């Protein structure tokens, strides 16, 4: 899994770490009353001893001694030297200065590197790392020690940039930034492509040509960014984030980040963490196209796809239009031929169906149905006939039963009885009527004798006033001039027995 350079660093690390506490950090302190010459390196001790011999009687202040040492160092040591050693006690001060020591098998050398100097160091120094430190030796009078003021720090063996690259790659790989799982698919047919590179460089033309040669319909959008120098990585990263933020409007399908070839330093922006994170965070798939084929940058590792050079960007980003047109033609032919085949197949099926017995004798189903209908009809008639016969039989049985009861004879007997009763009733009623009639006649005769009018028969008459219709009993009952009605015994018609007369005298 590890690439060779990494492996090397790994082994180196192991070797160093295998003897971690062979050397201990030593502090050199010159104190007025406890100068311990044993702790001083031999050359140093010699210089001081010589000075002291010259001025045997003189008493020095600490500052004076330090000044002497400083002068002696400046005089006797090269103004600039490169020291090879292993880093130990690496630490960062609150001001950003780096404090550490270099050691070898026999000794230790305190070092300091100012923050302003350390900014140029691309790799991350750490304990156990073999380095070449360049700088000058001077005395740190406040601490009473001499130290190496480092202005350049390089890893030993590999170049500083190579180490920095390896360290960054290791760190980001551990974080999973290079994992395939995070790689977004490059759209197969991008129509809008964003390019982040320098406006003035050759890369923009290379990328454009390489895309348009294959896929002329792509719309390209250049986002000009500096691609080298201080702050370039930050600007490219900001560009990536800006494009992502505005992509609802820009509608870019894919981004290409790159630049043409150059020195390792020139390409360095593409190895910086800030850019790697921006590429990783991009929602739009990112293709890297940095430098020459042999160059690999962190951007290449973290990008969703990599073009080895800007001139190859097109191959990674877009399909070849000729191939796509060929595919379209194939689709066209395939569709046409398959559609025709389906038509033919359906036609064939139709012919097969038409050739079947059903279509040769289309009335057959009708005839079959008719036959079935006939059969059903016959069955139905038989069934009804059967039912009728059964019902008839039942009716007959009932009739027989009724006949057995002989209703006519019963009727005859009852008629005779009825006639007898009627006769008896008639006789009885007649007897009663006659008896009543005789009683009635007797009463009538009796009544006739009592009728006032029956006196008329005997020669009496009844006089009434015509006006009042009242009986005239007394002379006061009438006035002169009144008309009287005299009723005599009737002879024939009712009115003939009435005589009208006028009162003329009383």
């Amino acid at each position, binding site marked *: 899994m590890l690439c060779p350079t990494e492996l090397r660093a790994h082994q180196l690390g192991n070797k160093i770490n295998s003897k971690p506490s062979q050397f201990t950090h030593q502090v050199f302190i010159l104190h007025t009353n406890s100068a311990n010459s044993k702790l001083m390196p031999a050359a140093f001790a010699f210089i001081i001893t010589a000075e002291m011999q010259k001025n045997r009687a003189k008493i020095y202040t600490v500052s004076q001694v330090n000044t002497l040492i400083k002068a002696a160092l400046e005089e006797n040591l090269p103004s600039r030297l490169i020291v090879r050693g292993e880093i130990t006690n690496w630490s960062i001060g609150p001001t950003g200065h780096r404090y550490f020591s270099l050691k070898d098998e026999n000794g230790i050398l305190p070092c300091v590197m100012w923050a302003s100097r350390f900014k140029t160091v691309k790799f991350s120094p750490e304990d156990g790392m073999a380095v070449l430190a360049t700088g000058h030796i001077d005395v740190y009078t406040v601490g009473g020690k001499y130290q190496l003021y480092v202005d350049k720090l390089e890893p030993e063996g590999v170049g500083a940039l190579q180490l920095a690259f390896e360290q960054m790659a290791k760190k980001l790989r551990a974080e999973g930034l290079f994992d395939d799982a995070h790689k977004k698919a490059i*759209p*197969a*047919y*991008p*129509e809008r492509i*964003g*390019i982040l590179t320098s*406006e003035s460089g050759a890369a*923009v033309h290379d990328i*454009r040509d390489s895309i*348009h040669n294959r896929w*002329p*319909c792509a*719309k*390209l*959008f*250049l*986002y*000009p960014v500096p691609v080298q120098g201080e702050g370039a990585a930050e600007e490219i990263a900001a560009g990536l984030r*800006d*494009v992502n933020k*505005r992509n609802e409007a*820009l509608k870019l*399908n894919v981004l290409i980040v790159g630049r043409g070839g150059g020195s390792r330093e020139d390409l360095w922006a593409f190895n910086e963490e800030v850019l790697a994170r921006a590429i990783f965070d991009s929602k739009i798939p990112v293709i890297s196209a940095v430098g020459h084929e042999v160059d690999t940058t962190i951007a290449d590792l973290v990008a969703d796809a990599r073009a080895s050079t800007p001139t190859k960007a097109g191959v990674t980003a877009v399909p070849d*239009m000729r191939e*796509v*047109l060929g595919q*379209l033609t194939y*689709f*066209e032919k*395939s*569709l*046409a031929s*398959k*559609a025709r*085949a*389906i*038509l033919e*197949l*359906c036609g064939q099926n139709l012919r097969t169906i038409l050739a079947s017995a059903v279509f040769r004798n289309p009335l057959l189903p009708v005839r079959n149905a008719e036959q079935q209908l006939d059969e059903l009809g016959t069955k139905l008639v038989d069934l009804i006939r059967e039912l009728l016969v059964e019902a008839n039989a039942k009716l007959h049985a009932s009739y027989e039963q009724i006949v057995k009861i002989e209703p006519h004879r019963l009727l005859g007997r009852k008629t005779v009885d009825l006639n007898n009763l009627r006769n008896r009733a008639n006789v009885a009623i007649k007897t009663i009527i006659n008896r009543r009639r005789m009683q009635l006649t007797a009463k009538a005769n009796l009544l006739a004798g009592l009728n006032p009018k029956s006196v008329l028969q005997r020669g009496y008459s009844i006089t009434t006033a015509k006006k009042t219709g009242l009986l005239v009993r007394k002379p006061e009952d009438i006035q002169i001039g009144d008309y009287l009605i005299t009723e005599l015994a009737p002879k024939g018609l009712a009115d003939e027995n009435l005589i009208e007369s006028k009162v003329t005298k009383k």
Partner: protein
Amino acid sequence: MAKGKQKSDIEKLTFEEAIKELTSIVGKIEQGQIPLQDSLEQYEKGMALIKHCRGILQKAEKRIEKISEPETKSQ
């Protein structure tokens, strides 16, 4: 009417969407397991998609536009 709608729908597709749909149509028709009526509709749609794709490919401007700075940086 439905056909007119279908046509305008196709014109809205990106190349990628159109190719995807076209591939699926070709696949379906090649398998031959769709009813005749459907296959004819699919055929017509496929041809319309091919035309649309060719149209996109012919719109080659070979231009490169510059993305301007965001208009409202205060946003």
